[in-house]
């Protein structure tokens, strides 16, 4: 650690934030990601509250209810939250220098992340079959209120989130391979921490999306 140097006149050298560049860079990048999702979610909120009616959960489909399968996605949300838990466990392991558990937990995180994306793809296929698309089928548009807007916002927000998870899984695979090669030690494991920050961010975004798109 580079301690502050006192210069003539008693001025401290201010050696930066005292966190390493990659970690600071990831935090800065995530700030930008927050704004990107703010743009998408903001558009959703404006369109939803500007619409005359909106498909609500807990109402049958033919009475203007949501076409989304909430139970399936609730399970999927659970999967993603579990992956954040395994991520934390992996990071905690390597902080103790436990490479064996790091590998185990990173592998679990990769699998859970991939499972999330897989379930989301299945959900998309099922919805598309029912005619729920970015531009709804004529048939569904007569049943679901503001169906085109719902489809537009739903696929854009969840799609961009899914793309983020997919990129996260790919990066996680890379980190996992490096872990299996013994690339992380008790002293040097910045990569695990940095990818972890991204992973938790993506998880957090999903909790917000799940709440505002599916639950309310």
């Amino acid at each position, binding site marked *: 650690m580079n301690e502050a140097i006192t210069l003539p006149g008693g001025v401290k050298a201010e050696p930066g934030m005292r966190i390493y560049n990659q970690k600071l860079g990831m935090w800065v990048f995530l700030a930008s990601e927050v704004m990107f999702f703010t743009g998408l979610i*903001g558009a959703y909120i404006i369109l939803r509250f500007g619409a005359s009616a909106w498909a609500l959960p807990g109402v049958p489909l033919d009475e203007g209810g949501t076409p989304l399968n909430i139970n399936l996605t609730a399970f999927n949300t659970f999967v993603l939250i579990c992956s954040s838990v395994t991520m934390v466990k992996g990071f905690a392991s390597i902080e103790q220098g436990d490479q064996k558990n790091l590998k185990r937990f990173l592998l679990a995180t990769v699998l859970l992340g991939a499972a999330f994306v897989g379930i989301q793809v299945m959900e998309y296929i099922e919805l598309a079959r029912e005619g729920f698309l970015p531009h709804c089928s004529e048939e569904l548009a007569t049943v679901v209120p503001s169906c085109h807007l719902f489809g537009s916002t739903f696929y*854009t927000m969840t799609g961009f989130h899914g793309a983020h998870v997919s990129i996260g899984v790919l990066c996680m695979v890379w980190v996992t391979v490096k872990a299996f090669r013994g690339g992380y030690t008790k002293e040097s494991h910045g990569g695990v921490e940095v990818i972890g920050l991204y992973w938790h961010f993506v998880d957090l975004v999903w909790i917000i999306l799940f709440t505002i798109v599916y639950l309310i």
Partner: protein
Amino acid sequence: MATVEAMAAPLAHGHHEEMSFVRKYIFSTDHKIIGIQFLFASLAFLALGGVLAIMLRWQLGFPGEAMPGVGVVAPKFYNALVTMHGTFMVFFAVMPLLVGVYANYLIPLKIGAPDMAFPRLNMLSFWIFVQSGIVMTASLFVEGGAPGAGWTAYAPLSAVPQYTGVSLGQQLWIISIVLFGASSLLGSVNYITTVINMRAPGMTLFRMPLSIWALFITAIIALLAVPILAAAVILLFFDQTLGTTFFLPADGGQPLLWQHLFWFFGHPEVYILILPAMGIISDVIANGSRKPVFGYHSMVLAIIAIAFLGWITWGHHMFQSGMNPLLGTSFMISTMAIAIPSAIKVFNWLGTMWRGNLRFHTPMLFAIGFVSLFTIGGLSGIFMASNSVDIFIHDTYFIVAHIHYVLFGGSLMAIFAAIYFWFPKMFGRMMNEAWGKIHFALTFIFYNLTFFPMHILGMGGHMRRIYDPTQYEFLQPYQPLNKFITISAILLFVAQLPLIANFFWSLFRGKKAEANPWRDNGLEWTVASPPPHGNFAVTPIVYRGPYEFSSPEVEEDYLPQDVPLNGEREVVGAGVGEE
């Protein structure tokens, strides 16, 4: 952990080996080379944007007459010209000239760092920018032509191909903007991390030059604003290609949503375009006045205040969109509030020059040009901020005059100052002073002859984006003025030839520059011109702020940041011996 890497890095550069030409000048990770690459690329786009401007001015000055070498400007092509002139100038000329060139070049040199925090991301940032520029230029040549919905791409005009007759061109525009956003994001992450983490010992935040402060705050604005634009244009892209209905009212979408998203990005964007210019000007004016910047802390706080207020004023672009007048009033107040920090800056520049030992070198002339023209542009901004005045001048040439006073008279004048000021550092040769002054004089005169009459056109009701002003009876008396503006614009364009000639001549034949030709205090002037790879042989130690001109403690009229005064050297030698 890897914490000490940043501080230890300057010592590590000693063992770098000779690199091939491609690694050294094309796919370089050296922030100085990347800055120079940005300089050449964005100057090329500046020239392209200028050519487009001359073509659209021709149509306004001489409607329906064949332009020599081009022919008659067709209506659809005119729309493309207006759109692409704005797009190229904002995204591919002024923004990269300020942020791409000078943030890259100056930040590490001025804070005493060996390079950016993430040199490879920095290289990626430049090459994504090049791709983005290629895609944008390509949209000029595809079937259907370049987009014609304006640089603001208002939906649904931009969302429905039938409205403008452009389909592929508009999509390429969107793809290019997304790429541009990625490039800008990588740059911002780099600049912010570098400024926070890689300052040399003693370079406290309040010892940073104002140019670095401005670029730092600008990077934060760009980091947060550009993703909003990316989100907006992606929604627009989906409306065009996937059948979504975000901005299409027929299926419940909201055209006003586009305006809100665009200007929520767009207003912070105008501060991205002016804040770095203000920072650069502060450095140049202090140097040219041989005095410390007047009110350094208030300058920093003014930058921060402008950056903050910039987020809550976007609605003033939308006064006439049918917005609730009560909401419009709040936007009016927040917009007028920006005049306060802006005026603080202007008075501080004047205070810096007041009773200074003025040196009218070319950068200083452009800096004074900046202060005078920015003041005019800033004052006309206050008119327009008034909700009721805006009813009259909205979307007229008054707006065009205002934007060009702040963007050309402001930003571009600062860019010219910066080019002349840091050219010796970048290329190791001086630019010719006499031709520099001729360039300034011609630019300043023809600039004002071009843009000042636009205020009068605007007051006469001349609309912003019309193809043929002679179609309107009430505009016919203004046609001689339109002709005058067009001729002045052509002369303004020609007045840039001295710059181009001087630039390339000096590149090869200019007088060799010493390390510190302007007798300045910044750390970049303590190393050779051009600085070696890795910048500093030994990490510099900073003892004071950057504006210690005419200090009574030394014989010379400048006191570099890294020079210890009598007695300081020994103390420091003991203090940092283990570094």
